Every structure is written in C-alpha cells, then in structure tokens.
C-alpha cells in the first residue's frame, strides 16, 4: 500500500470517492468516512484495543462500512493518526534498545542537560534513560565539528559491541556519533556493517532522525525512535495488510506530527515523527474551521475530560515547533520529559478538564486540578459515587449544562449532587455554593487565559489579534468567559466538536520536513555549500513526497533557517526567500531574519553578524481528495430552534438570569441571535453571555461576536448574500441554502418521523438527491456511526433539512 499508491482510486472506478480517517486515541478509536463526491460523511467510534490496536480499527472499519452499506472498494484512500507510539514511550513498552556511540560519550543520554525542572524538590525524579548504561556501548571513532575524520571507525570493535548487544537481547539499535550531523559517513558505515551481520535488528542512526547539532537532544530523539521502531513496523504492516484484506485498495497515509501526510514506509523508518499525530489532526481541523469562519489567526482550545490543550493558528496554518517533550515526568513541568527534535504542530497543555477536581490549598485558595475524577467515579453529578466537586459539577450548578440533555441525553446528571459537592468548599471559604461554582468556573478559565497569554507572548504576539476556537466537550462551555478574559472579539464553535480532529485527517496535504546543520555567519558563508545543503534536503523531501503519491508537479518547497545574532544563545526559525543562493542572497536573507526578529523582539541589532545554525526545508503537495466542505442544515428561525428557558449564571449580568436555550441542529443559518443564550448539541453546550450576538454560518460554524465588538460576521454574510443572489441564476447549487432556510422546521419534522429505515440506516443510501447537493451536512452525517448508540433523538432532529430538499 504505502509508497505505491498514486492517489487514484483503484477499485470500483468512479465509485471510489471515499476517504477514510482513523484516529487511535488512548480510549477511543475514531473513524470518519467522507465522500468527496457527495460531501457526506459517516462517523464511527470504537474502543481502542491496546493489546492489538489494529484489531479495534479493523472491527470499527468493518462495522462502519457494513452498517452503512458501503462497499470497501469505494474507499479511495486511508489517512491514519495514532497516539500508540507516544503511549509506548510513556508506558515504556517499546523494544529492548541498545546504543553504540563515540568512545567517551555513552553517558550523555543519562547526564542530559544537567538542569532541574523544579527548584525546591530535592528528591525529584527525571525520566529513566530508555537505554540502560549496560546497553550503551562505545567504539573508537571521531569526527571534528567540520565533519573531517579525525579517528577512523574501529569496525571490528563496532561489530563486537553490536554482537554483545544482540546477545544481551536488544531488538533495536540506536547509533549516534559526535558531529554526525556534519558528516554521516561513520554512522552510515556502522549501520551497513551491523545490518549485514544482524539483518533482523532494527537500526536508527542519529543523522537520519535529527541531523542537528547538540548531542543530547539528538540522542534522545534517536533513542526514542529506536525504541518504538519495531513496534511501529509490526503494527503498521499488520494494519495495512488487514485493510487490504478488507478490500480497501487505495493508498494508506500516516499523519505526521507536523500535520502533513506521509506513506507507511517513511512512518516505519522514523516513527518518532508520528508522536503527536493525533493532536496534529485536531489542530488542522481547527485551522480549517477557522478559515471557514473567516479567521486566519486563532487560539484553538480543546478542553476535554482531564485536560485542556491549545494550539495557535497563524495565517490559517497551525504554528509549527521544531522540538517538544515526550513522556513528561510531571504534568505542566517543562524540562521533565524527553526532548524530541521533530517538526510538530505546537500544542500546549494549558489547564484542567471537565473532570478536574476543585480543592482548597494550604493558603486557603480555591484550586482546580490537576487531580481528576476520571471516568470512575467521575464528577459528583454523575451519581457514580463521586462526592468531590469537579468542573462539570460547577458548570451544572451554574445552569450551563442541561441535566436532561448531557451527551445528547445519553446520560442524566444530578444537579442536587453537584450542589452538594460545592458545600464543603463553601464552608471552607465562607462563600455560597453558587459563588463556589462560579469560582471553579472562573479559576479554570483564568488558568487557561493566563497560560494562553504567556504562550502567545513567547511568540511575540498580542492575544487580542486572535479569535478563539473552542472544541472538546467542555470547550464551548468555557470559551465565552475565556475569550472575555483575553479581550478577544470573536469566538468560533465549529460543528461536530466530537469528530473535529478526525476530520482534520482528511484535509491534510502531504508534507515532509527536513533539517540539516550549517553553523556559519552570513558574511563567512560558503554559499555554494549552503545551496548544495538545501538542494540535498529538498531532493530527499521530494523523493518521499513522490513515494507518497502526491502530485509532484505541485510540490511547494519552502526554505527556513534557524538563525541568530552571533553571541546569542538560541535561534529563531526564519522563512527565507527562494533559492538558489549566492553571495547576492545576503540582503534578502538578512531582511527575512530582521523581519522575524522585529516581530518577536521589536528591535533588530546593528553591528552584530547574523548566523545560521540549522537549515530546514518544508515540502508539501496537495493530495487528491484532501478537501472537505461542510454544510449546516439550517432551521427556520431562532424562535423555532428555541427549546425553552432556564436560569443561567452570568457574572456580567449580576447572577442567574432567564436565558433562552437553543437546539443547535435547528438554528437558522446567518441570522444574528442576541445573547445571553445556551446552545445545546450532543457533544457539548455553547454558553453565550449577555451583550454578545451569535449566528450559525452556512458551514455549521457558530460564530459569536463578543460584547462591544462589531458583528463582522453579519457584515460578511450580507456581502456574501449579495454575491450569492447575483450568481444564483447561473449556479443552481447556490439556491440550496436559501431554500433550506425558508422551510419551516415544524413541518419537516413529522415527515421525517414517518420515514421508515431512516433511523437505522441513516442517509447514505436512501438519498437520491445526494448528488445534487455538493456539500455535507455535518449534523446529519454524524448520525450513522452513533446510530448503534443512543442517538435516536438526533436522527429525528436532523431530518427536517433533508426533507427540505
């Protein structure tokens, strides 16, 4: 599969129009099938099977296809993200790994950076080295920093050490020689010799994984790769084989941590690049929904059960970092994990989740998290024996959640138990239960806002330049107040919060990042060598992209360099003008560096030479079928979408107010509705405070204009509507939306109910009109995968729109 596909559907001719996304998380495996021709999608969710993850995937895929009557041959391509390798690192379930390195340096892995991540704990634990000392071996060899051989590789000693490691049970071998980033010859030679002698031994060389200066970070990355590599090969081969056996013949892509796709062989070679693939898909989806909402700069907040994570989107693309820490010893503690040098979408853990518990600390202050109620017993309101106040309990007391419609009604939650959980805290602080509940909500929000402020400051930006995009079960519940704290003007809640990240898989381009080391000042640069180094990186990236089946004619290559002023201690990543480079490139490269420097630090310097440390190349190419367009159903009016009223707490309004509650699936399209409001959907609840307005866009995004800000969405929608009206005649498809809008939902609903089979076999087959409607309706499409579970109310609700046609 991998490496051989061309991106074209093989089986089933023109019928092969489906993309299949697979996202394996710690608990659940999410599946999404998207029809590029019809614009529909189907969702599946199964439990992850950690003992044999491929089994869960295959069962889920089989069920999803069979349940919707879709032949496997219609699947044109598969895109896969997984947290398996991260978990293998965290749980230390990788292969027995050995290390061979330059004589004198086997302890680099254990000595690390020699810094502590916490100042006051004299007994702190740092990660145990993945390779124990007895499996770290040295051989005589030495390169200079310029890559010149100073001591030849002792090949006999190398083989003796490799034999000893294999005899000691190593299944995987990491090789790192000093300055191999400057000259990989010794590592390459060592690999060839050892591979010839031990063909079944998995081997990772440092220059293949992270050809970057600084031996500890490169070694940490190399060893992590070696540790998960045998596991990755086994798993990916098996999954690819099983998918083929199911009859899915299209190409099989893996999502990299940088949000790009690659083929299976590349993934097997450097699985360390996949560590953050799951979260990367989420960030891509956020960028997609943000662009749909007209926002290029986003703070994407994903708040789930135990944790809240954030990613920044700039210029419509997730911000990429070039290193991260895996398997942290202590949560939130920078420096307590394993440094991994890969390009990855930058994600930060910024706070607590819905299940996080509130407590009073030694100073008498209200704290939330990091302890969590987990799934069992869960928050007090679940009624499963939990008595401590969790964030979800507070949200319930404040009226943000509907006790009868939690998870779309799949679960009842008990307000009395939630309120009771507030009482011990109320007693300890002298506050009322409501004040405690608001306090929990507010403290959680402040933690997220503060972390976001610092994170954005680290990038030299002002938070007010960003819109907030909220996903995850608890995200939309908290987002309005977080946006308020950050002084943001717009908040976006995309549709289908529960499947968002899986959708991100389907819109990813093929992307390969490569890095090399070139330490030189610009005045002292050997430009021919510099150009040659970039060419080598680009050729390698191009080769992998071609193998991925990407359209080679449309490969876009961007050059970057890690640069700094001479004398500074760390670099900034600068996108450079196009090559080829020569001495004449100096002004352009200097200007590019100064522009980034100014953006981050306000003042470029004079009289200090600029230097490069690393060269980077990002090559990407569109992948056929990697487009997704969603459509909202669109109810008749705000009035019709109104489910009722309830008391909801807003500090801005001075307490509990009577607040309208809306059904998200029946909201009209492009109508401004004033806050306060609560908008309920199956996976979450959007809380909208007073003084703001919100509207559902045609693509299902809910866009909220925060208090005191102009309703930009309204202006945009107006302009758009005008254009639409003008083009309506020429383009019959443009009529679709207005039609959906005027149809009264009340009328449509009974008709929907009358339809047999609709419940069990949603949408897919039954719809002759599918072809005429190019865009998907996320709500409706979300049904099938859930049909087996308790989503009956939803299927009825989503029908009106279908009938409207």
């Amino acid at each position: 599969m991998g490496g051989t596909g061309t991106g074209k559907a093989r089986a089933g001719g023109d019928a092969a129009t489906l993309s299949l996304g697979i996202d394996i998380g710690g608990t659940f495996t999410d599946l999404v099938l998207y029809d590029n021709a019809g614009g529909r999608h189907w969702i599946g969710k199964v439990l992850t099977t950690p003992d044999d993850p491929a089994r869960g995937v295959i069962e889920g895929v089989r069920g999803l296809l069979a349940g919707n009557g879709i032949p496997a041959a219609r699947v044109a391509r598969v895109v896969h993200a997984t947290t398996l390798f991260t978990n293998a690192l965290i749980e230390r379930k990788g292969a027995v790994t050995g290390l061979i390195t330059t004589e004198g340096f086997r302890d680099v892995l254990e000595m690390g950076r020699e810094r502590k991540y916490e100042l006051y704990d004299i007994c702190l634990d740092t990660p145990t080295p993945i390779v124990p000392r007895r499996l770290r071996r040295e051989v005589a060899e030495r390169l200079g920093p310029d890559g010149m051989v100073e001591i030849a590789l002792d090949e006999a000693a190398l083989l003796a050490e490799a034999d000893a490691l294999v005899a000691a049970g190593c299944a995987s071998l990491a090789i790192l020689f000093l300055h191999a980033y400057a000259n990989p010859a010794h590592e390459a030679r060592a690999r060839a010799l050892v591979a010839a002698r031990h063909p079944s031994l998995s081997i990772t060389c440092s220059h293949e994984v992270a050809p970057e200066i600084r031996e500890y970070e490169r070694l940490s990355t190399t060893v992590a790769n070696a540790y998960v590599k045998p596991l990755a090969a086994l798993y990916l081969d098996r999954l690819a084989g099983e998918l083929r056996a199911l009859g899915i013949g299209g190409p099989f892509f893996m999502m990299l941590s940088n949000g790009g796709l690659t083929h299976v062989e590349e993934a097997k070679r450097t699985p360390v690049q996949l560590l953050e693939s799951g979260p990367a898909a989420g960030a891509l989806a956020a960028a997609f929904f943000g662009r749909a909402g007209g926002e290029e700069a986003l703070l994407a907040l994903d708040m789930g059960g135990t944790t809240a994570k954030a990613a920044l989107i700039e210029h419509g693309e997730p911000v990429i970092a070039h290193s991260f820490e895996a398997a942290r010893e202590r949560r939130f503690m920078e420096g307590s994990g394993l440094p991994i040098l890969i390009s990855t979408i930058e994600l930060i853990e910024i706070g607590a989740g819905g299940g996080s518990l509130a407590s009073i600390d030694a100073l008498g202050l209200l704290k939330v998290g990091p302890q969590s109620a987990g799934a069992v017993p869960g928050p007090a309101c679940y009624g499963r024996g939990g008595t401590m106040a969790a964030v979800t309990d507070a949200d319930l007391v404040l009226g943000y959640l509907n006790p009868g419609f939690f998870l779309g009604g799949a679960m009842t939650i008990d307000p009395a138990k939630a309120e009771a959980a507030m009482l011990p805290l109320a007693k300890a602080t002298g506050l009322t239960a409501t004040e405690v509940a608001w306090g929990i909500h507010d403290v959680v929000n402040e933690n997220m806002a503060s972390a976001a402020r610092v994170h954005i400051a680290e990038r030299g930006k002002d938070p007010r330049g960003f819109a907030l995009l909220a996903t995850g079960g608890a995200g939309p519940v908290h987002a309005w107040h977080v946006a308020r704290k950050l002084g943001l003007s717009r908040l976006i809640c995309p549709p289908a919060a529960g499947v968002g990240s899986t959708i991100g898989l389907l819109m990813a381009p093929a992307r390969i990042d490569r890095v090399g080391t070139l330490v030189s000042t610009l005045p002292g640069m050997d430009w021919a060598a510099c150009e040659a180094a970039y060419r080598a990186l680009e050729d390698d990236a191009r080769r992998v992209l071609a193998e991925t089946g990407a359209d080679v004619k449309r490969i876009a290559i961007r050059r970057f360099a890690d640069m700094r002023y001479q004398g500074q201690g760390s670099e900034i990543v600068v996108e450079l003008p196009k090559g080829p480079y020569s001495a004449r490139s100096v002004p352009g490269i200097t200007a590019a560096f100064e522009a980034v420097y100014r953006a981050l630090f306000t003042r470029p310097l004079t009289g200090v030479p600029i230097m490069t440390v690393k060269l980077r190349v990002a090559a990407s190419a569109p992948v056929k079928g990697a487009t997704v367009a969603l459509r909202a159903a669109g109810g008749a009016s705000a009035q019709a979408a109104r489910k009722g009223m309830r008391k909801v707490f807003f500090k801005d309004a001075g307490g509990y107010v009577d607040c309208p509650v809306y059904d998200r699936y029946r909201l009209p399209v492009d109508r401004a509705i004033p806050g306060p409001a609560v908008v309920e959907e199956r996976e979450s609840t959007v809380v909208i405070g007073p003084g703001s307005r919100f509207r559902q866009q045609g693509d299902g995004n809910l866009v909220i204009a925060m208090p005191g800000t102009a309703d930009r969405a309204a202006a945009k929608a107006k302009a758009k509507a005008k254009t639409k009206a003008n083009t309506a005649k020429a383009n019959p498809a443009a009529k679709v939306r207005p039609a959906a809008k005027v149809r009264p939902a009340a009328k449509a609903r009974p008709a929907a109910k009358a339809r047999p089979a609709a419940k069990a076999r949603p949408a897919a087959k039954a719809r002759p009109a599918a072809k005429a409607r190019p865009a998907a309706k996320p709500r409706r499409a979300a049904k099938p995968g859930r049909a087996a579970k308790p989503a009956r109310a939803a299927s009825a609700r989503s029908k009106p729109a279908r009938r409207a046609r």
Partner: protein
Amino acid sequence: MPRAAKTRAAKTRAAKTRVTAKAPRKQAGFDAVTLEVIWRRLIACVDEAAAALVRTSFSTLVRESHDFSCILTDARGLSLVQATKSIPSFIGTLPATVKHFLAAIPPEQLAPGDVLVTNDLHLGTGHLPDITVAKPIFLDGRLIGFSASTAHAPDIGGKIRSPEPREVFEEGFQIPIMKLIERGKVNETLVNLLRKNVRTPDLTLGDLWAQITALDLMEVRCLSLMADYGLSELEGLTDEIMGRCERAMRAAIRALPDGTYRAELQTDGLMDKPITVRLAVTIRGEDVVCDFTGTDAQVDRAINCAMCYTYAMAVYGIKCLTSPNLPNNEGSFRPIRVEAPAGCIVNPVFPASGGSRMLIGHYLPPLIFAALGDVVPDRVMAFPGSPMWGMNQSGVTKEGKPYANMFFYNGGMGGSPRRDGHATLSWPSNVSSTAVELSEVIAPVRIRYKRLRPGSGGRGAHRGGLGQEVMFESRSESPIAVSFLAERTLIAPPGIAGGAPGARGELRLNGEPVDPKRQYVLKQGDTVHLGTPGGGGWGDAGRRDPALAARDRTEGYVPEGVTD
C-alpha cells in the same frame, strides 16, 4: 556618589547585618476565588514579561539557564509575584534591591517614565554582571508599584571571570543606584560609559533594553488588571498574598522543635588555607534565625559572598526543607532572619570582590540541611557535589578576534531520604552544561570524554549521585588562557545520617593535579581533566537495598571489584 558612600559606611559600621523581610499591617478582604484569579493573572503578567526577556536576551545564561528574574511590587517595594522560572538567588535578592532603590530615591523623586538601575555588589546580587532595573508604576499620578528585573549581562568589563580579582574595582563597571531613564529620556552619559567599559557593548546594551521591554510589559499588564478589578492600589493585595504565605510558612516552622542547631564546614578556600563557615539555626516558635557568627573573615579573592546572596541561599535552603510548594514571594521569607558579622566571608565589606561568590554561596543551603539533619532527617539530602564547576577560556581566534567562553559542569546530588542522589545535576543553582558539539564549534578544543565518574557517589542507604569527568584538548595554535570555578578538590562532600562522603573533585593539567584557583595558559595539545565531585551518601550503607546495590554493579555505577 554620596548616596552610595553612605550605604557603604552604614554597612561597615554595622557590627552585625540583619536581613529580614518586615511585615506590613494593612488587611483587605479578598475571597478564595477572587484572590486566586487575580494572583494567577499577576503571575501571568510576570511570566509574560519573563518570556519576552528570554526571547530578546543575548546572554546564554539568561536564555538557557534562566539566570534572571522579573517581579512586580507594590508602592512599598514589597514583592507580589515573581516569575516562575527565576533561579534561587534572584528570588532572594531582587525584592531587596527594589527596596534599596526606594530608600535611595524616595517616591517624591520618581516620575512616570523613570527607570532605575544598579549593579552594586551589595545592593544587587553580589556580583557585577547582574544588572537590576526597576520602573515605578503610576496610576492617576500616584505611585502604585514597581516592575523590576535582574539579568546576568553578557559582559560587564573587568577581569574575565575567575576567583583572582582582589577588589571589586578589578571586576568591571560599577553602576550605583541612579536613573537610567528619566521621564522617558535615556541617560546617554551612563549608556556611553557603559558601552566603553564592556567587551560586548552591543550585547550588554541589547540585554539591558530587553529588560526594559519586560518592565514596560509588566506595567501595562498590571494596570490593565487593576482596571479590570477596579483596584486603585496594590497594598491590600500584597498584604493578602504575603499574609497567607507568611501564615503557611509560620505553620511549617511551628511544626519543628525549638532549639539551636549548629553545623560548620570547610571549603577549599585559597587552597593553602581552608575557609570555615559556621552556622547556628535557631528555631523559636514560628521564627527561624540563621546566624553565621564564627565564620572566617573575607579574603582578597573574588569568592566573597555578599550578604544579599547569603540571604538568598539561606532562605532557599530553609524553604526546601519547610515548604517547597509555597509560591515565591517575600511573605514566605518573613519568618526567616539571616545574620552574619560584617567582614566575614558571608557578609564582606567594601571593597571586597565577589565575582565567584557561588564558591562560598552554594555551600550554604546544604549547610542548613546539615544543621537541621537531626530535626528533619526525612527531608534533608547529603552534601551535593557543588558549588558548580566551570571553565573559562579566552584567547584569539585564527582571524585575530578575541573570544571568551564559559563552560559549566555539575557534580552529583546528595543522597536523600527517598532516592539515590541524581547524577550531574545543577544544585542549588540551575545552570545547564554546554553541549559537547557546540563547545567544539565555538572554541578551538576537542573534548575527549564527558562521562560519569563511577564510584564517585558517597556510599549510603541512598548513595550520592555521580559526578562527571571531562577532558579538553587545546587545538589552538595560539595560547588559550583558562581559569576555573572548581571547589571540593580538597574537602569531599560529606554524607548525612550515616552516609559516606562523595569523591573529591579533580583538576589536572596534562595529567598533573593543579591549583584550581589560578589561571593557566594552554598550548596546542595540552589537556585539562575536570572531575566534578560526587554527592555524599544518605543513611548507613549497611541498610542499602540489595537490588539497588546489584543495579549499581550491573550498570557500572560503581567500579568493578567494589562492593557496595
């Protein structure tokens, strides 16, 4: 500068300097939620400023070792919050420096747009490269607080860092307390003088402006927070925050038995004569006094540890033992008093030099552990292989350009009640080691090895952490001058609670042991071997878990043939 002279005179006169944070009175009502939210946001203010400072700084010490701090204080100079990534020394010194500013330039002489500056050895951090700046913050024309920052400058002139300078005048450019910026107008005279007196004028000034960017940012964020919460002053908030921390600290101290507990140690000193530091820790009710009476006199080498640094190290040690999780602000330190006779090496007087003050200062936190070892045996670790080690090299490149580099290497942590000491970890400071590959790129040297020193950890139920050994070889055709930060080559890090001492440090030039307090000149092919000390052991080695002993043998943490 008459003002500086007065301060100096005061210091010399005092028979005994006492440093203690004084408690203010005011009380305001903040509930558990409001205070938490405001506090969290205040911390974000200083962390945001710290992020900006780190990103704009030239100094590798600032960027990679966080050798800086940022704080916000109220109008009285009492610190509200401190940046999360601060290092222990500045946590103790920066709030004091702000109060020195206030004492020297009273509020009526301050105006919006002013920025104050100093690197005074006694009023700052104990050595000249650390420059402190503070900006008064005004709201409606009234002084409501200060934003302040200390950062280690890339260079401050004077002799390249080594213990050799005999007086502060040899150590670089001194800035008394003065206005760097007055009502928005930069004091160009000072800037020109500073530029002329340092080796790296662009970088040193660049870092100074980076600090001022951080001050501006804290000011803006603080004022916007006050607007959001309708605060007109910060005093009530400070009192609340400090009050709560003080109460928690007092409760922790109250849990310890009253008494006076003594310990003393000897350092390598000037090699021919050890230096003795004596400490008596007195716990009485809710208060702690650390008294260094009996400590040896100051010396004419740059290892004198100014009182500000002594104070910072002492309170760091006490906090590790009593309340490691309390936030960093003066409230936590109020119950702690630190005393030392003027003229002793932990409270030197003008014109003592102090560039390498950590060669005394880093001994102080573990000395506190030693004093309280019998009181809280379950919370103390044995002596670590610190003070930190370093090698400074300077020379001229092939292209004829002068260069100077400082490389740091750490010893092992002491064994502790919960675990074996960590190998090669920076403590009490937090300075990372320079990557081998980077060292070879920026200096004309080869590093032959950088590895653990098996057997260097002191034996014990929990043994000490291993030190490391590093060998440099000069590849330079021109001579390289080298000087060292190297302690514990004569006196090993003691164990605690029955544990054995760790291995002494080693410094060898071409295989021969040499005096680490002197400067040497390397010619091509010369080698330097540094062996950092191992940590002392904790508890009786006879009680060591056999599984741990077996692991030490399997992994080679003890040399073959040695039984544990």
